[in-house]
């Protein structure tokens, strides 16, 4: 993971973790890297790493096992999917439609393109 320009690092770290849970890279019940590991690997202050991890703890995606570390909660994947679906409209659809309008694409043209997308992308 490389950090993008101006989005706070802790947010990017949280998103990367969420992506990992969704994709199955961090299965439910498994341990995620420790604060120290994140800190040393990405050369960031541990407080920043903690902030990112705490975002997921607050939303119930991760939990802390005393003395052991952070683990992915049961049902985290489903929870994430549900949450992301809700945000899908704002995050992707609105942007997509705005860009389409900028380019002069109509609703039906856009639908066609989306159908093609589903066929092309695996």
């Amino acid at each position: 993971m490389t950090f993008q320009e101006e989005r706070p690092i802790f947010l990017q770290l949280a998103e990367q973790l969420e992506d990992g849970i969704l994709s199955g890279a961090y299965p439910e019940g498994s341990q995620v890297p420790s604060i120290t590991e994140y800190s040393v690997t990405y050369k960031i202050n541990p407080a920043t790493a903690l902030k990112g991890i705490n975002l997921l703890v607050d939303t119930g995606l991760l939990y802390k096992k005393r003395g052991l570390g952070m683990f992915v909660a049961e049902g985290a994947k489903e929870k994430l999917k549900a949450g992301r679906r809700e945000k899908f409209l704002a995050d992707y659809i609105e942007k997509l439609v705005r860009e389409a309008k900028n380019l002069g694409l109509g609703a039906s043209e856009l639908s066609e393109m989306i159908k093609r997308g589903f066929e092309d992308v695996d």
Partner: protein
Amino acid sequence: MSIEIKNITKCFGDVCALDDVTLSFGGEKIYGLLGNNGAGKSTLLGILTDLLHPTGGTVTVDGEAVSNNDTALGKVFLVAEQNLFPEDMSVKKAFGAAQIFSAAFDRAYAEKLAAKFGLNTKKKIKSLSTGYASIFRLIIGLSVNTPYLLLDEPVLGLDAQHRDMFYRLLLEKYAEKPCTIVISTHLIAEAAELIEHAVIIRDGRIIRDCPSSELTASAYSVSGPAGLVDSYLEGKHILTSNTLGGLKTACVQGQSDALPAGLEFSGVKLQDYFISLMEEEDRK
């Protein structure tokens, strides 16, 4: 448990390197002391360690004044820009001296680090290159385990690989044995993600002293067609602005409010904020 700096002034003859500086370092955080060359960073660190005598003001470490106080001074270790070791001393002997002076010095760890960096411990300090002289001092700093660790331009002369190694080792050490660390540097971008609290110093005065997240959250960047940007900028505290063709970008102090269409907003990186701040100060 902190280093308290109160109203420190330091003048060398007519020139004042520090002017009424009041700061606090503590809480086992990593601080960034950020400023350009000649801003007064090294002078401040020298005063904290009794290398320099302040013209005015006081410094206390955990409540005790620093002057002529071994207990207080023993809690602070400065990895200085300059070499304070006898030049004809070998690195090995320097480790031995560290063991004599500092009960908490971890010799095995120091030798491990020397091997990692490729530092030949048999070499005399005067024969080390700039980079390796820095590495030598950094190794001692990482191994003394004092409650306060001050680093003055730690990566000066280090190649990219060694810089990377150093940052990781520093964070590792900080995680295992937390302490209060102050990184004094003009390399803002490199320090940005390491530090939790930023102190910005310019011409001997402190112009910012707050958590680094607050700093970057306190400004934002707006860009778009010049006319739109100009009308948006009315009444706002502008730090810097650039115009390229019809496109204008400005760095603004404050929180971004309503987002008019046609304008792009983004956050500001610490280095860019720092540069904007310096440019604003230049104009004053």
